[in-house]
């Protein structure tokens, strides 16, 4: 039998005014196991806590019930007080007689009666409490960043700067992400490569950062502080440590007709390629879909030309296994394909381009070396129509996305402005639903486009684009003047919506991290924990969490790094001891619990059991990993055999509370 002490708090007059605290103390003294009972003005004050501590020592209490304010206020205070005199903190229970009693019931008799019942329920529970010890697990002091766009690079740099090892896993042959493809960046119009490439180089040179380019995540196991990850280093058929990036092979390869993804397929590259001049790592990669040697066994030009003998046609995918304490997801985004939007004639005319293609057409390192030329005939365009919100803010969402892509208004203003700046003889029209420019210096930027650069902003929708005699006939509605417009354009630029990288969904499954209906990773709390995923130890950085521009991406990247550093500086993680546990003798291995666990905390193993007839038998039983379990209790209810239970909120404890209330 427990030796229980009951402490009834007056909370000044907050409780004492409507609850007869002395009577509560007296009545509860009569409960079985209660060996001490007292009331006091402020239990949470130092003298109140001393009263509790002294009573624990003097009466050798094994359990404590505090009748006071909500446990959400002072549960920790009282647990700490108990722990300081050697009583396990989980032997303390609180009866909430303020928020749930004295503050809502004006009649003293009613309040007092309810307070006694709540006290009894807490006593009944404490009888079944058992000391709980929070598990500790060590922290692997190394972080993994998945995705090497600006988000991933910034996160990795910050973590490395703080002195921790970081690995970046990037699926394409180089880090840099979409920002490497941009020409100038709003709202300052500084050149994207000029601000990005120094960071890429810094990441490559930083000793604490290891870059696995052309690599993907195969498997993630473990939990916060102790992830074990399998990284697939895809065969690039070039020895990364030997290749000097001289680029000779990429000039001599006879397979010249490979669409160049870096220039959005608007020109060609060879089968062996370096994505762009400042690629990091600057190493060639053979595209197995186009390489004649890999496909037919005949060619071998690159291997002959390579001065350092870096080419290896027999290379295989390699699996690297590594341990990490924290994982940051920075898998970014892609513009959606405009193919579904037939009305804009994207698939009918090469002069209808997406905004990212337009970035490449404007870029000095792009397919036209920075001169704006129509893809169809290489002539200079005189009239350009920009269409905003292509696939963003769509109702129904079967064609597009329900959300605002956030960056399109600003980059379209940028495109319009840059075009007018370089080619003042072009007429530029922008069709918009709303222009959204919340951000530092954003609205000023947009107004400059309208006022200084005379870009024609028209509120309205483009209904149809028809290629005709080398022109693009644009039919549109001007919503403000209520007119139908017909514009003969030379080019049409579609500001297509952004969407998460297609690989994000399978990655989320591997990480047991959750996603929203649009496949953006969800944060642990939309306001208060914006860079953490609900899965402990997994953090979010950049566009993979939702549309954002570069300044926001970088802020979030640094915030995620700060969270990771906060985790990695710890030597040990102290868990929550109120976790699930299964009784192996009752468990029948049915998997019901595993299916409902949102964190993948439950695993199975075959264990040997001694049977009543003295033989042994193998049985499949469930086990909960206490470091992963968050203590929701879903599994305890799913378990058909009553094997699964939760420490701190056990079936018996809750039943005892029900019984005490329903007396």
């Amino acid at each position, binding site marked *: 039998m427990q030796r229980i002490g009951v402490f009834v708090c007056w909370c000044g007059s907050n409780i004492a005014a409507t609850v007869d605290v002395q009577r509560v103390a007296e009545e509860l003294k009569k409960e079985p196991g209660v060996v001490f009972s007292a009331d006091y003005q402020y239990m949470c004050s130092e003298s109140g806590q001393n009263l509790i501590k002294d009573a624990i020592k003097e009466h050798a209490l094994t359990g404590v019930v505090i009748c006071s304010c909500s446990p959400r206020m002072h549960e920790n205070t009282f647990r700490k007080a108990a722990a300081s005199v050697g009583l396990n903190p989980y032997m303390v229970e609180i009866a909430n007689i303020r928020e749930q009693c004295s*503050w*809502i019931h004006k009649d003293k008799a009613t309040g007092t009666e309810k307070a006694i019942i709540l006290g009894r329920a807490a006593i009944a529970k404490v009888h079944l409490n058992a000391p709980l010890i929070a598990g500790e697990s060590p922290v692997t002091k190394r972080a993994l960043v998945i995705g090497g766009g600006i988000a991933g690079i910034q996160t990795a740099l910050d973590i490395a700067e703080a002195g921790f090892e970081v690995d970046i896993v990037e699926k394409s042959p180089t880090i840099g992400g979409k920002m490497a493809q941009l020409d100038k960046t709003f709202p300052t119009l500084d050149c994207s490569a000029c601000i990005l490439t120094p960071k890429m180089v810094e990441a490559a040179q930083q000793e604490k950062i290891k870059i696995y380019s052309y690599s993907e995540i195969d498997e993630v196991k473990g939990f916060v502080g102790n992830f074990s990850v399998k990284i697939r280093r895809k065969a690039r058929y070039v020895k990364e440590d030997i290749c000097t990036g001289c680029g000779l092979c990429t000039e001599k390869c006879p397979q010249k007709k490979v669409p160049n993804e870096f220039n959005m397929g608007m020109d060609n590259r060879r089968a062996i390629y370096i994505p762009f001049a400042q690629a990091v790592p600057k190493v060639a990669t053979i595209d197995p879909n186009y390489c004649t040697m890999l496909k037919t066994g005949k060619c071998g030009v690159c291997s002959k030309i390579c001065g350092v003998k870096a080419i290896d046609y027999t290379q295989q995918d390699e699996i690297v296994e590594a341990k990490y304490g924290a994982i940051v997801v920075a898998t970014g985004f892609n513009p959606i394909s405009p193919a579904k939007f037939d009305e804009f004639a994207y698939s009918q005319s090469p002069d209808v381009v997406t905004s990212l293609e337009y970035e490449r057409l404007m870029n000095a390192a792009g397919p036209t070396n920075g001169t704006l030329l129509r893809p169809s005939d290489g002539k200079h365009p005189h009239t350009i129509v920009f269409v905003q919100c292509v696939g963003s803010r769509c109702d129904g969402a079967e064609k597009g996305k329900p959300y605002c892509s956030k960056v399109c208004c600003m980059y379209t203003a940028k495109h319009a402005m840059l075009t007018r700046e370089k080619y003042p003889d072009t007429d530029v029209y922008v069709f918009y639903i709303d222009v959204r420019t919340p951000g530092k210096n954003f609205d000023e930027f947009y107004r400059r486009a309208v006022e200084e650069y005379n870009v024609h902003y028209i509120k309205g929708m483009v209904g149809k684009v028809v290629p005709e005699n080398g022109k693009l006939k644009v039919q549109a509605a001007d919503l403000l003047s209520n007119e139908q417009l017909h514009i003969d354009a030379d080019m049409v630029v579609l500001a297509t919506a952004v969407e998460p990288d297609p690989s994000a969904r399978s990655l989320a499954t591997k990480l047991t991290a959750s996603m929203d209906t649009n496949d953006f990773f969800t944060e642990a709390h939309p306001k208060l924990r914006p860079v953490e995923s609900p899965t402990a130890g997994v953090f979010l950085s950049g566009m993979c969490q939702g549309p954002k521009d570069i300044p926001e991406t970088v802020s979030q990247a640094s915030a995620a790094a700060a969270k990771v550093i906060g985790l990695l500086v710890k030597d040990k993680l102290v868990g929550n001891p109120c976790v699930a546990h299964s009784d192996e003798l009752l468990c029948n291995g049915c998997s019901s619990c595993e299916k409902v666990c949102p964190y993948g905390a439950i695993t199975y193993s075959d264990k040997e059991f001694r049977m009543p007839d003295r033989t042994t038998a193998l049985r499949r039983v469930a086990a909960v990993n206490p470091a992963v379990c968050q203590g929701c209790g*879903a599994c305890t209810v799913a378990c058909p055999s009553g094997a699964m239970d939760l420490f701190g909120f056990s079936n018996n404890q*809750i039943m005892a509370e*029900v019984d005490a209330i*329903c*007396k």
Partner: protein
Amino acid sequence: MQVENKEFKPLIVAFCCNWCSYAGADLAGTNRLNYPADVKIIRVPCSCRVNPMFILRAFQRGADGVIICGCHPGDCHYTTGNYYARRRMTALFSMLDYLGIEKGRTRVEWVSAAEGQRFAETMNSFVSTIISLGENKRLEDLRCKTK
């Protein structure tokens, strides 16, 4: 229905999840929003922790109504807990209805940590429903009576 017994003080058990509804109940208290003392709250980590067994036990011990409160769909601290709760309780409540525990005696409600008002209103409306239904006699096990 029969004439209401003025003296009837129902016994109501409310299971509240720690993260939203329990905090909502706290806020109702902080804002001094009244609801009848007949409601007694049991704190659980999540609405998905509520085992049908607890509800059966409450009715067996003479409770007149049981209500389960959790975070709004999509807001569960453990992401999916309240969906499980909703599914389980729908099945349980129709079974209880079949046994004679009218649907009105059982309820699932979503109350966020910011909805003190909603918590008090929910409890007020639940208590008045229970009063109009009268005492639970179907499942109460008289052998459990102590008094």
